[in-house]
């Protein structure tokens, strides 16, 4: 079953067609990668899916509902969460609070209950804290829950961002370059974490990634964007040997050496 269907998405900034007629279908429970050279429109495409940009053309259907006209917070509330290419944590909040913020759409205590500190509020907050710590354990950050987010090392910040996204109990999580700037060991951990997202939590994962080793290792499907257009789609084997992909990455002429695919 398709969890997300984006059809014929086009986004134009001034004279630049950032995303050009891209169609992408994501099956429930899959891990899908969107790759492409810098400036290919990957992040713009993510921003359209999550509602930050409105597409000029095309529709997005998420979980059976059209989400084209919805605000980003409404889309997030429907169960689509994301991380950012340049980590965007709430720096002056603690690790635990960051995850609690991610849980916002699941907390409903009305303001008078908060002011009166009613038993139902205490219950809700207690549950939220338990759940947050569960998620922090999942990304192995529970021992740092009281630290300010800005004081975490880089890799921890990436994982915290994932935990925060998970706090919304998402059906789909979009990871924008989750291993950017990581060393090989950290990348390996991140790869395992992404797998566990799907295998243990049942979350469908879409990632933008430049690390081809990771992409090839975990994606069931790969879509390649170049200059805003989808130039190829398929599993790792198909992409590896696709001349247009090789051309996009290595330039014209390189396609002839398809025996040595980009890695």
């Amino acid at each position, binding site marked *: 079953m398709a969890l997300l269907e984006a059809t014929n998405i086009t986004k134009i900034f001034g004279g630049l067609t950032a995303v050009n007629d891209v169609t992408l279908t994501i099956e429930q429970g899959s891990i899908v990668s969107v790759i492409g050279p810098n400036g290919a429109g990957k992040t713009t495409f993510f921003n359209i899916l999550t509602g930050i940009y409105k597409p000029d053309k095309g529709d997005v259907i998420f979980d059976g509902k059209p989400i084209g006209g919805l605000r980003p917070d409404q889309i997030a509330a429907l169960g689509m969460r994301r991380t950012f290419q340049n980590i965007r944590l709430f720096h002056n909040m603690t690790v635990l609070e960051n995850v609690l*913020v991610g849980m*916002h759409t699941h907390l409903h205590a009305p303001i008078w209950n908060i*002011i009166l500190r009613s038993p139902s509020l205490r219950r809700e*907050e207690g549950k939220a804290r338990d759940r947050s710590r569960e998620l922090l354990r999942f990304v192995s950050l529970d021992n740092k829950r*009281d630290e300010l987010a800005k004081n975490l090392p880089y890799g921890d910040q990436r994982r915290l961002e994932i935990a925060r996204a998970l*706090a919304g109990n998402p059906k789909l999580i979009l990871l924008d370059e989750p291993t950017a700037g990581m060393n090989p060991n950290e990348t390996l951990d991140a790869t395992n974490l992404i797998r566990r997202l799907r295998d243990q939590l049942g979350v469908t994962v879409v990632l933008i990634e430049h690390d081809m080793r990771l992409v090839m290792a975990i994606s069931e499907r790969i879509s390649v964007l170049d200059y805003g257009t989808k130039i190829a789609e398929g599993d790792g084997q198909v992409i590896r040997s696709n001349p247009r992909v090789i051309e996009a990455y290595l330039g014209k002429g390189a396609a002839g050496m398809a025996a040595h695919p980009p890695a």
Partner: protein
Amino acid sequence: MATSSPQTGGASAWDRLSGLLGRGPGGYAFLSLYLLITSLMLLLNPRTSLLTDIVFILFLLLMLIVYRTRVHVGFKVALGVIALGVVMPYFGTLNPYYIDVATQAGIYVALALGLNVVVGFAGLLDLGYVAFYAVGAYIWSIFSTPQIGAMISGAVPVPNMWFYGFILVGLMIGGAFGVLLGLPVLRLRGDYLAIVTLGFGEVIRVLAENLDKPLNITNGAQGIKDIARPPLFFSGALTAIGLKLDDNQLYQFFFYFLVLVIVLITVMIVGRLKNSRIGRAWTAIREDETAAIAQGIPLVRMKLMAFGVGASFAGTMGVVFAAKQLFINPPTFDLLTSISILSMVILGGLGNIPGVILGAVLVTLLNLNILPRIAEILRSAKSAGVPIPQSFDPTQYQRLLFGLLLILMMIFRPEGILPEDRRRQELHEDEDEPREEPA
């Protein structure tokens, strides 16, 4: 807005001090002694002077020290009740000036806490906050005086018992005006937002100044006088227990305690909101709007809520202020007052509740007591022959001194006196420490 930087050396000095005096029998003895000494100094020498001002500040600082030390909650509450509920009123009978100052400080504490919701929590710079205060004040002024007759012919003032109801009306109207201001500025951030709120504050003041025609709503620049005070339902009881106070004194105590109660409620509400989903959403918006939306936080609703909640405290205090002052006019609600309240929030520690309270008390006392007193001392020194140039009039330089203080503060401790420190958030930790504070 600048966010607080990591704790500096002052904090560790504080830690060492509080480690020494903050817990165990040492803590109890220190706090009791502190209260005893400052109380005695106040009560034995209640004359209005710079020394008394300083002792008065030290006396109020006890509340902060109590808040920060680790002694039994009951002991904290007891100290607070003795200091603010017994010593302060008694001191007030000896020198009524100071209880009025305390009341004034309390009003500013509530205002600063309200503004802190908007600026400190949600990070929305608001330079027109005094407008909501004005709205509350004018509401009660118009409805409790014959001014209502000038507006609606034949209408008579409401009975003064309605004052208590109007506190809630002030709260709601203040909140409504907050939302009203919020609506057009939702798309703005930072500097742009500040300019629009500044304009809004001025609009309200100018409206108050000019709405005497065609329909006389605010009585224009002359202001509204003879504002009704609530009936003193407790005066009989006080006489019965042998306290003989005249009406003015009674009202001073009444407003002191009323303001104290409102401040306590405000602190409680603000504290609880801060540690709730709403407060966290505000902080998230302050930190990073884009990331906040991506967590499903509805920006519009949360920002409007911040404006509304912040403004409602000002509306409430406006009603109380009008009844206390008996007279209001438009200049009371000028831009300088907004800036003053903002400086309290920033001086004390943006976003941090005890810090904001401290800032409000210190700035109020500086403006009302310390600076005029210093000017007075300089002037008398001048007439006593100290060589100060004839053209130098110290009273003219009070604001300069205040400005210098602000500048020094921003150079050496830009995060405020008590910056926001995120305390450990243990699972199931109860944050129900008594939030006593200087009023």
